């Protein structure tokens, strides 16, 4: 903040101003007292309210997470269901290896490879920055791979359990169409673990996209977190962690509420 050549006196003066020379418990008490009022102090780096800095970055993160989630969830569920309907076939095994590939994906490496191929070689998309489709395509693709794999894995195992249960036999016996059996009778019952993992994935995309946002210089919360950490900007770090924790809580709440809709038995407990 004061530059590398600043005198020791100047450094101490600034540290005093920022309260960084006080004992840790005192600093913590001051932080807690303010945090209750949603005041995290001004960012050392930008000199404005750190909470509003974080909130300014929310739309970018929401856009990216929503796009990646809308790509990952339907494809993941379809692949997982397809694998579960034909267990132990080549289709199942190919889907299994592909979805494990998604789970094992090194996302920041994938991001760089996609940039090399589609942005540098072909020039179809932009390498980095914030904007419309040509900016969003590559980060979205990178970000959706790991959730896609996980959702497909969980859907497969939940659907496998479900398809072997007696009510499916009954549904077949009374002559229901296979599509109706799969999508209404099996998939809805198998939905609870799928919704749980999808919620986890959504919250990890909302706040854990640090690597992908950094590689694509996407101005979201993840990129901001890294910038704050690199600049040792404590108030900004505190504000990001607070906002991230809030988003996790909201997503978890929505997931819990969806259980009530998906399984009416939970309502009466």
């Amino acid at each position, binding site marked *: 903040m004061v530059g590398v050549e600043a005198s020791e006196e100047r450094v101490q003066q600034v540290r005093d101003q920022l309260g960084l020379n006080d004992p840790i418990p005192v600093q913590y008490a001051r932080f807690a007292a303010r945090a209750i009022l949603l005041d995290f102090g001004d960012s050392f780096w930008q000199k404005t309210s750190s909470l509003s800095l974080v909130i300014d970055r929310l739309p970018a993160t929401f856009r990216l997470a929503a796009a990646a989630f809308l790509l990952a969830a339907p494809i993941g569920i379809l692949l997982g269901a397809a694998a579960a309907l034909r267990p132990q076939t080549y*289709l*199942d095994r190919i889907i299994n290896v592909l979805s*494990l590939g998604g789970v094992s994906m*090194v996302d920041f490496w994938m991001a760089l490879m996609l940039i090399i191929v589609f942005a540098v070689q072909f020039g179809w998309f932009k390498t980095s920055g914030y904007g419309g489709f040509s900016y969003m395509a590559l980060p979205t693709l990178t970000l959706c791979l790991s959730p896609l794999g996980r959702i497909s894995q969980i859907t497969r195992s939940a659907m496998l359990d479900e398809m072997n249960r007696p009510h499916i036999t009954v549904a077949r016996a009374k002559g229901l169409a296979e599509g109706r059996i799969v999508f209404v009778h099996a998939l809805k019952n198998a939905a609870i673990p799928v919704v749980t993992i999808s919620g986890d994935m959504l919250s990890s995309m909302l706040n854990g996209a640090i690597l992908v946002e950094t590689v694509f210089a996407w101005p979201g919360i993840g990129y901001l977190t890294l910038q704050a*950490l690199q600049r040792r900007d404590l108030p900004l770090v505190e504000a990001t962690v607070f906002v991230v924790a809030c988003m996790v809580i909201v997503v978890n709440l929505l997931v819990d509420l969806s259980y009530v809709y998906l399984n009416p038995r939970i309502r009466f407990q």
Partner: protein
Amino acid sequence: MSDEMTLFPEEQTARSQSASRWLIVRGLMRDPVTFVAVTILALVLFSAIGAELIAPFDPLEQDLKLRNMPPMARALDENDSPVGFPFILGTDPLGRDILSRIIFGARVSLTVGLSSALVSGLIGTLLGIIAGYYRGAADDIIMRLVDIQMSIPVLLLALLVLFALGSGFLNLVVVLAIVRWMAYTRLARGQTLALRNSPFIDAAIAIGNTHTRILFRHIVPNVASPLIILGTLEVATLILSEAGLSFLGFGIQLPQSSWGLMIAGGRQYITSAWWIVAFPGLTIFLTTLSLNLLAATLRAISDPIQRERLLRKGPAPGNSSN
């Protein structure tokens, strides 16, 4: 013969048990996917142990004349004719051989992955079986801690702790152990809860075993196998986390090297020298994918019905519309 053994498991002697285990291993290796995964992991492990023996070049030797050489290029002598062993995967901006650096990097990445998985596994399992066995206040406290930690994203928490502690090899292992223990705790608790009410635990209490003895002699062996599978998955997750943290500059620090750090180093050269980024990342991907495939196979053989299917040759015909 193997059919007989699985039909009457209680009649197995120690010898036929080890024989049937051998049959399972042989049967699994016939599965091409598992075979490839195990081979890759064996290669990585061998590289980590015997890096000095198999690396074609010194991973630290710099030569700016040889910077950013493409894969398969060779050094040139005075007459511009190629000499020496080729740089199979090319060289980096300081003229170091990428293959050799990947081989030596295996040591760092594997050590971080395995040791933090071991530490977090021990802590997490212990807390989990305590919570599941004693229930009550211990259970409440431990599980609330798990809930709190579950709500903070792993990478963010790891970054924060490294930010406070400073980066480096040892801190990295500690941090990764801290951020991943709760996965084991949840699993171990669930398994212990299921075991807690079974008759053999009641019997063990009735004949006067101490709780410690019951925990370690009766509970631990019975909850071990799902935890080992989880551990395999966790090593993959931890290798990925290490790579990500090192890439961001919060993990392994220079002059040490790891796969994640190699990718970070090549990032500014992606337009001119793609191989600097491509091969270390591919190594990480193949390693984690193999670990995930191995865990999937282990999970399948721990389930007797699935094991029978796997041991049959190839996938069974589809039973889509039965």
